[in-house]
């Protein structure tokens, strides 16, 4: 469940982050300002507040979002803002010469963007993206507060049924699992990063 929440909200974030990033990089100042406010607002509100807002606050008539979909939607919203910012950072580091060179070669705007700028931006923002993914993995524990039966929720349930020292165990196991999942990911990320750097 932890992985499901993490992967789906990361997926949402990775896709929704692209239009947000385009808005942040728009040539028209009003559009840029609007997107800047949206992204800052999303990032300014803690994840747990987003989850509560979606889970308790949003109703369609008598329908309410299930805790799982509220968690995925909430984390997805937060991720899209963060990833938009990370993507933007990647594009910001590109030298202007890249755009000028592709214009000089007669490439169209879309081709320039997709074939020239995007691959380079992705490369520079990759370390930040993996760092964010690890943070998201840990943030998915917040979903337990609205009743998604992910790892921390199960640990809490178990420890309520078994008071005493045994009750401590599930948290240590859950903590251990987080470490076991996140450390190899971090190692892979570091290796990927140094490899891309070498090609650079």
């Amino acid at each position, binding site marked *: 469940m932890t992985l499901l929440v993490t992967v789906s909200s990361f997926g949402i974030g990775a896709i929704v982050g692209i239009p947000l990033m385009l808005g942040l990089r728009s040539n028209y100042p009003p559009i840029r300002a609007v997107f800047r406010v949206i992204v800052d607002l999303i*990032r300014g509100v*803690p994840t747990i*507040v987003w989850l509560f807002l979606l889970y*308790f606050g949003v*109703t369609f008539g008598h329908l309410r979002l299930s805790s799982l979909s509220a968690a995925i939607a909430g984390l997805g919203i937060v991720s899209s803002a963060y990833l938009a910012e990370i993507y933007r950072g990647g594009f910001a580091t590109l030298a202007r010469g890249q755009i000028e060179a592709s214009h000089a070669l007669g490439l169209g705007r879309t081709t320039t963007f997709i074939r020239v700028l995007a691959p380079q931006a992705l490369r520079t923002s990759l370390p930040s993206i993996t760092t964010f993914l690890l943070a998201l993995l840990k*943030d998915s524990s917040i979903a337990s507060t609205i009743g998604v039966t992910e790892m921390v929720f199960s640990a809490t349930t178990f420890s309520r049924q078994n008071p005493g020292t045994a*009750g401590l165990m599930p948290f240590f196991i859950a903590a251990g699992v987080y*470490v076991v999942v996140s450390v190899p990911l971090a190692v892979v990320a570091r290796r990927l990063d140094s490899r891309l750097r070498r090609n650079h």
Partner: protein
Amino acid sequence: MDLVQYLPQLCQGLLVSLQLTVISVVFGYAVGLLLALGVSSRLSWLKWPALVIVEVGRGIPSLVVLYVVYYGLPSVGLLFDNFAAAAIGLTFTVAAYSSEMLRAGIQSVHRGQKEAAMALGLPQPSTFTRIILPQGLRSSIPALMGLAIQSFQGTSLAYSISVSELMSNAYQSSSITFQYLQIYAITGLVFAVIAVPSTWTSVWVEHRLAKGFA
């Protein structure tokens, strides 16, 4: 019950959130600095324990840390009230994250600085405290400011161990009035009103500092 009635409650919660933030940031950065020194130490008995603490602190979600401190430690005889538990848990997380930022800052100080200090005949302790550390701290300021803003948002997790901070006061008000959407939207805005200008400030400071280096 409308806005006028639950706003004072939210403000009270906000005060608790701010208290938690200040405590966890002040102590967290102090412990973080010690951990950073530990990790970059050449003595292996100092280095490895510090490294383990940092990696564990960064690897575990702070929600889990809070649960372990509040629900877990009593079973080995350590009992804290919920505010203290939240302060300890958040401090631990902040310490682990800040130590890596501080370490990166200290490492970014150019080798030449150390060599120059040695050439001037400064003893090693004062080389570190008067030359390396100030410059290292300075370059880690932007990252540390960002972390402070994040830990302000992170205090909302203390709700889960029933500290009466902003989030849990919001929850209480909303379970009385059933105006979930309205109350959580306002809560979110309160967080954003503090976090967003702080972010802008930190970006501004970053630019200023970058100018100073050039």
